[in-house]
């Protein structure tokens, strides 16, 4: 479904050339939960941005759903991104002026759904992240974990093929991080492919597959069994909540 | 000024907004300086000395329609009445009133030959009786006044025996300063000796090039339409007369209509109404423009401060004093203002050359450039001060906060 071969990304500034990705190759299949780790500056975000078509690359091929991304123009990439990809960011990136309903509405607007369909999808998505009661609240009225759940609802509302998450738990305390992780796992189990960049080795281990990027290249990837199954996980969350 | 380098590089990074402010300051400067230049010209025009006792004069028109009895005795009776009124110093019948915007003019020359060759100077022709000069309040600097018996009352072409002219006309026609006693030629063989020279007297049309060139003649025209000029003791008496004089004149003779009872101050105001309107509009434009530019600077600098709050906090945390921060923004602004003014001065010069070309404008007042520059600098500093002050108050603690 997603296939990168020999992707090269070079950032040029007046002074330096940074090789953010060098001969980067990777294949991700439908339904996978991929965790990406690596030291800071190794190219994780660059990889995610290229995957999400927010960034172009210098050479190599990137096939998304059998389409050659480098052949698409900006408009087509935007459309593809809108339909197939959901983004989740470390700093949530909710739009502060819009209430939760309108935030989740953003990708749907660009999709061109009818008002009725949008309403339905927004309510469903917020329901899924357990925030349907707070539809009219502004992001600033929510905790960090709740904000991230809204961001997830926003990413899900358009029923994308896969979610791209760049350190989605980086700004959260461990309880909230776990809740968000649990939510992502549920989503993955319902069929959405997830690619998640994280610093947290424990969280990474819970993904089916781990990719380690060093210096712009995949240095190592392994298929892992979930360390804890979902049952155990919810117990652990409950414990932390009590404390 | 050790901070200029980082400021320059910051400005270069925000090329477009820097350029925009420079352009805005430049155009504002050009408009402000050229606008004030025009204002100054109009002000000079309006503050020209009239040579008259402005605030003591009132004027009126008489239109008589009666099956005309003796016009001359009618005029004499009117003036006798006017001169006898309390608070009146003198009064005179006149064919035209200075600054009124209507009247007669004629070309005069220093010889018959010169007149035939069209070598004439335009001059206003003021006809009235022997009280005319005293009523106007003009100052005789050479020669004599008209005598009572020199005055002719006629409806035909008069036989004028003496003229008094303004110094300006005398200087124009006789550059050697020997005008007194010379003859003035009106064409058609008419020549009249100059018996007196008055220091100064404004003409009837404020924008006429011969505004200051005027000729006074001892003659009263007998027509259904005529004008009277009245000199009061003071402004108060003049104001009182304004309300009374029409009634008194009509009471004396009902077969006429009195119109246009006005003070000289009102005539002057009317004469320059377009100029003063232009001045008002220009003032408004100049002030609004300066205001807009100042607000623009406030807006942009406020925005920059907001954008750099974290950076400012960090600088403060690293030891920058409030004064350092303030100085940074003020220096940045001074730099931009200087650039803007440089471009503005170029534009002003160009704009003015263009305007002068198109509209025959009087000489541009170059002193306005340094004055304008100074003013723009002050405006720049005033507008940057508020947001810069706010920037200097940013707490160093902000550096450690996450947004």
């Amino acid at each position, binding site marked *: 479904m997603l296939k990168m071969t020999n992707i090269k990304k070079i950032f040029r500034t007046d002074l330096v050339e940074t090789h953010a990705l060098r001969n980067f190759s990777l294949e991700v299949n439908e339904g996978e939960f991929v965790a990406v780790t690596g030291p800071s500056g190794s190219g994780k975000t660059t990889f995610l941005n290229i995957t999400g078509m927010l960034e172009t690359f210098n050479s190599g091929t990137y096939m998304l759903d059998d389409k050659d991304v480098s052949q698409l123009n900006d408009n087509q990439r935007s459309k593809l991104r809108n339909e197939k990809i959901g983004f989740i960011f470390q700093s949530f*990136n909710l739009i502060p002026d819009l209430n939760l309903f309108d935030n989740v509405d953003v990708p749907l607007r660009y999709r061109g759904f009818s008002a009725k369909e949008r309403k339905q999808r927004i309510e469903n998505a917020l329901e899924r992240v357990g925030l349907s009661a707070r539809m009219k609240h502004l992001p600033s009225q929510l905790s960090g974990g709740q904000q991230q759940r809204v961001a997830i609802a926003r990413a899900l509302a358009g029923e994308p093929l896969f979610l791209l998450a760049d350190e989605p738990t980086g700004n959260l305390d461990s309880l909230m991080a776990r809740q968000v992780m649990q939510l992502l796992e549920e989503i993955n189990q319902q069929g959405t492919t997830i690619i998640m960049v994280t610093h947290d080795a424990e969280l990474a281990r819970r993904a089916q597959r781990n990719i380690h990027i060093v210096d712009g290249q995949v240095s190592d990837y392994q298929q892992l069994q979930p360390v804890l199954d979902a049952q155990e996980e919810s117990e652990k969350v409950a414990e932390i909540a009590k404390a | 000024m050790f901070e200029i380098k980082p400021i320059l590089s910051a400005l270069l990074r925000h090329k477009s907004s820097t350029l925009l402010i420079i352009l805005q300051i430049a155009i504002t400067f050009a408009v402000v300086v050229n606008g004030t230049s025009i204002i100054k010209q109009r002000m000079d025009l309006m503050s020209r000395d009239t040579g008259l006792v402005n605030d003591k004069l009132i004027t009126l028109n008489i239109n008589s329609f009666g099956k005309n009895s003796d016009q001359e005795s009618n005029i004499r009776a009117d003036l006798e009445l006017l001169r006898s009124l309390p608070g009146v110093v003198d009064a005179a019948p006149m064919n035209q009133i200075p600054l009124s915007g209507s009247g007669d003019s004629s070309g005069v020359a220093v010889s018959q030959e010169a007149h035939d060759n069209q070598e004439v100077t335009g001059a206003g022709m003021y006809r009235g009786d022997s009280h005319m000069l005293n009523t106007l309040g003009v100052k005789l600097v050479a020669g004599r006044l008209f005598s009572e018996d020199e005055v002719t009352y006629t409806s035909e072409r008069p036989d004028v025996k003496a003229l008094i002219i303004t110094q300006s006309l005398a200087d124009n026609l006789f550059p050697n300063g020997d005008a007194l006693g010379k003859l003035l030629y009106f064409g058609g063989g008419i020549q009249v000796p100059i018996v007196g020279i008055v220091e100064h007297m404004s003409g009837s049309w404020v924008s006429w090039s011969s505004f200051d060139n005027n000729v006074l003649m001892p003659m009263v025209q007998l027509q259904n*339409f005529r004008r009277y000029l009245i000199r009061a003791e003071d402004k108060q008496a003049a104001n009182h007369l304004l309300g009374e004089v029409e009634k008194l004149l009509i009471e004396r003779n009902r077969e006429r209509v009195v119109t246009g009872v006005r003070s000289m101050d009102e005539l002057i105001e009317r004469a320059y109404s377009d100029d003063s309107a232009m001045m008002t509009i220009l003032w408004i434009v100049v002030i609004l423009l300066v205001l807009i530019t100042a607000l623009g600077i406030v807006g942009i600098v406020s*925005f920059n401060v907001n954008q750099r709050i974290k950076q400012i906090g960090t600088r403060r945390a690293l030891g920058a004093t409030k004064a350092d921060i303030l100085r940074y923004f003020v220096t940045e602004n001074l730099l931009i203002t200087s650039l803007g003014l440089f471009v503005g001065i170029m534009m002003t010069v160009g704009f003015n050359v263009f305007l002068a070309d198109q509209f025959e404008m009087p000489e541009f007042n170059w002193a306005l450039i340094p004055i304008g520059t100074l003013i723009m600098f002050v405006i720049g500093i005033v507008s940057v001060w508020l947001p810069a002050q706010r920037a200097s108050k940013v707490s160093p603690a902000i550096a450690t906060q996450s947004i």
Partner: protein
Amino acid sequence: MLSYYLKLSWLSIKRTPILTSLMIVAIGLGIGVSMTVLTVNYMMDKDPIPEKSHQLYHVQLYTYGKGHSNSNTEDQFPVQLTYPDAMNIHHSNVPLRKTRSLSTGFSVIPESADSPPFIESARAIDHQFFDMFKVPFLFGATWDAEIDQSPREVVVINTELNDQLFNGENSVGRTLNLGTVSYTIVGVISSWQPAPKFYDLNNGNFNDSESIFIPFSLLPIHEIPSWGNNNGWKNENVNSYQDKLASEIMWNQYWVELPNEEIKFAYLQWIEGYISEQQKIGRFQHEKAGVSLKNVVQWMKTNQVVPSDNSILVGLSFMFLAVCMINTIGLLLAKFLQRAPEVGVRRALGASRSQIFIQHLVDVSLIGVLGGLLGLALGQLGLLGVKTLYTSYSQLVHMDLTLIVLAIAIALGASITAGMYPAWLICRTNPSVYLKIQ
């Protein structure tokens, strides 16, 4: 989608109220000032009689003697005619309509002894004047054609004077005393105030129209005085009204209606014939002797109906608008850049460049419309100011629909132009830059 963009614009206005108000004020002032100036200019320059302005011609004859000229006009033609010329060319039957014209005035003496006499401006004309200049009648009509040859004391008055003297009743057949002469009223015209007063541009371009119209043929009989300009160049003994009628003094005006080029050509030929006839008796001795026919538009131009001060103000007001626009671009740049992170998110969520661009243009259009409305309000205020500053323009100064639409269009156009660059900039930027962890 438009309603969505409008909603977003509204939100963004709410978020940056100060910046937004600064922009609205800047655009509003720019529009207000330039609309005020443009309105005055437009109204002054406006064709006062568009249906006929190219058929009505003002006649000028170069009657100066050798060595004389008029330095006040570009082509040096005198602006008015002598009485003999006005009388003579009136014999031509080439024009469809024609009228002699003189600005004058009278003391009006009301019938009732308790109302005092008053002065009214008047015009001496021929009977076709009203048809030529499309003057509407309320009661009665113009006088008979024959009166232009064999004069009788008839008069047409305007509705204002009719209101004052006859309480607005049909006064046709009643008497009007002008000075010592009694006139019979034959017609009352409706309100008629062309601005500029194109049919007489020598006596105040924006003066009120006259309230009394009498036959020109009465001039020699009642020695009707000229209230306008009298220009002479020749040394003549002018001791009486009869002398003046025979003199070379230029104090009459003449208008003809020439419906097409052929008739105009024929008329020019007729006049040239007249001039050569006159040359035989010693008139028209200047080498430039000739005729000039200027239609209403040309006549307005010759007489500089739009004062040069206005051109300066138009120039300044456009510079003013330019500053306001530059100011707005700067503020928009700031506003949009501030929004860059949000744009990054939108791009990540699938908004295309054009969608972002349009969103921002809708944003500036909204500001433009608001600025335009403020500008209209300020323009009205400005016009009120102009009215008090230039009392003679009062009836000239109002915004018609064209101008209101123009104001909004300029505001919209200007703000969209101003918004183009910032909107382009923001939609071009790489979204990933703004999604970074700060």
